[in-house]
């Protein structure tokens, strides 16, 4: 993409204006997320930069919204709920999803296309319809307003991501490795745990991360299924934004951005690792 020395004036103009356009689009993507970080330290309950903040006066900044967040029983409880529901549904979705992906990627699997589209349907069906359907279902089995109900509902929503990422990893899997291991005398069990699992682990972990973030960020189904005891962070934010948006929400948002940066880093490291394992080291 570097501009050649012999480029004419027109080409140069185009080259630089193209760079400017791209920069603007990248700014559109990233600025809105970054802008709430300084705003969450605003000492005033406003959602804009005060003159003190603009002049970088320390008096314009404070941690009061973070203090409010950490002191609030409701928010603390919702953090606990969010993590426990997300972790439980991630474990369920990852276990079930990985098993299914292993089955689906076997060449002998019957009705593969049909089963695949059933398994990924929670990703396709509009959330409001899923939420309404699950609301009626979990009410009829007395699980609405319970942790188990919310966990199972989030599991269903996270499963497509696990199935897709793990089958994608397996589609590039070299089955001659398992045959080689078997011919060298390894039992099917050993082959699975020593050969197969280590190679698909990056796919499983990234599927698990997707399942985690799906549940951690989910609000529509939670609106319908969660009772007052199961309020999660997104549900709490949803209520907060609708009623009276308080700067505490910006503090929460900043913390959530930090969490997503962490997840992104883990995912990036995994990607590099799996590329290295497959001999596709980035240049």
């Amino acid at each position, binding site marked *: 993409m570097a501009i050649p020395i012999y480029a004419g004036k027109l080409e140069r103009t185009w080259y630089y204006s193209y760079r400017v356009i791209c920069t603007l689009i990248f700014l559109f993507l*990233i600025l809105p997320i970054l802008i709430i970080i300084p705003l969450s330290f605003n000492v005033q309950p406003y959602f804009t930069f005060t003159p003190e903040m603009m002049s970088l006066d320390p008096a314009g900044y404070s941690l009061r919204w973070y203090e409010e967040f950490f002191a609030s029983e409701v928010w603390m409880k919702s953090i606990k709920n969010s993590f426990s529901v997300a972790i439980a549904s991630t474990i369920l979705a990852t276990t079930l999803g990985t098993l299914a992906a292993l089955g689906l990627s076997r060449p002998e699997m019957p009705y593969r296309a049909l089963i695949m589209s059933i398994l990924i*349907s929670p990703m396709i069906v509009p959330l409001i319809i*899923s939420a309404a359907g699950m609301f009626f279902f979990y009410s009829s089995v007395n699980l609405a307003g319970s942790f188990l109900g919310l966990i199972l509902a989030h599991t269903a929503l996270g499963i497509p991501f696990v199935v897709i990422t793990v089958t994608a990893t397996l589609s590039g899997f070299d089955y001659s490795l398992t045959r080689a291991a078997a011919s060298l005398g390894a039992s099917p069990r050993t082959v699975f745990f020593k050969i197969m699992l280590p190679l698909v682990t990056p796919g499983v972990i990234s599927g698990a991360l*997707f399942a985690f973030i799906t549940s951690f960020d989910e609000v529509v189904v939670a609106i319908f299924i969660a009772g007052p005891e199961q309020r999660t962070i997104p549900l709490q934010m949803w209520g907060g934004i609708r009623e009276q948006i308080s700067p505490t929400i910006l503090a929460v948002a900043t913390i959530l*951005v930090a969490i997503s940066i962490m997840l992104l880093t883990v995912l*990036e490291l995994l990607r590099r690792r799996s590329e290295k394992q497959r001999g596709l080291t980035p240049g």
Partner: protein
Amino acid sequence: MANTYSKVGEMTTNDGVPLKVSLRRSQRKLKLWAFLLVAPLLVFILVSFIIPVVNMTMRGVENPQVANIMPNVVETLENWQGTELPDEAVYAALVTDLTMGRKNKNIGKVATRLNYERSGMRRVITGSARKAAKLKEGPYKEQMIKINKAWGDIGVWSLIKRESGTFTSSYLISSVDRKTNDAGEVVAKVESKQIYVNLFGKTLLMSFSITIICIVLAFPIAYLLATLPLAKSNLLMILVLLPFWTSLLVRTTTWIVLLQSQGVINDLLVWMHIIDEDGRLQMIYNQTGTIIAMTHILLPFMVLPLYSVMKTIPPTYMRAALSLGANPVTAFIKVYIPMTVSGIGAGSLLVFILSIGYYITPALVGGQSGLLISNMIAYHMQNSLNWGLAGALGFILLVIVLIFYALFNKVIGIDKMKMG
């Protein structure tokens, strides 16, 4: 079977079973194994997701109220022609059913159900049920008409007869802004009550605009990411992936903060003297707000598939076109863009499918004009409690989404989708 075909000279395994049979047997075992691995998940998704979703949309045609709670009326009305008022037997049945319904405290369901079709029916039913309980003896026809003159209206009776089946098309008819009149014909509702067709149209139109804006914004940066050296593009990719991984509510909140009339953008414009204090722009709680916020949220879904397609296009093609004398613009349009069509298709369908069903963002930043069909379904689920209508609207929405999904599957194939 096996022995019939087992001839001398055919290949057999050590224990004498023909190879073909033995192979088939082991194949079957493998098949069973594969299926057993999938089975737990399949059962889970079927029971806790597919069946509930189907049930929810089935509520759009289910109609148990009149049939279950007024069985006598339904039975006696069976042979009624609908040309004149029904006879005494029907009125007697009506009194029985109303009295029973009041005693069992479920007559309200019938009242609510019939009120959807004809306003005022709720009071007709509940009021008559209260008074009918006091009637001592027949003939009931005169007395019922005296209690409420609605019972002397053939239209009311044809409504009851029409809604006496266990299935109804009335919710679906209502979701396309139509209704059945007294004569049993399907006609358009009065103009002021026509909301759903417009809303579906608006949802499709807004999803379409968001998709187009996403293509326009995603194409340049996907091209840049695909053509830069890997180390640099990986770094820039973070700018696409971070929004992708950030909570939906955080991204919606941030747009409220940016766009509201006392927000960052308006403050900035006032500070730069582009607008004055009274001229603050209304960029949120309307369609503009919904489109801006949803474009931002869905843009990564366009960039990622586009990028992965562009990554596979060798730069030599463009060079070949240029060396053959095409000017850069022609080469780009005639050679490069056609090769990215599958990426554009994948991204567009993904963005389109996701935005048709969007609920959270429009509800928070859409105000009145920026609401989509999902918000209407949520309204009927939570506020008006007209679950039948919610089911019918949901059914139509689901059908639209499934059509686009089938298209997506045909064009790209879901298993080729990449994430992250």
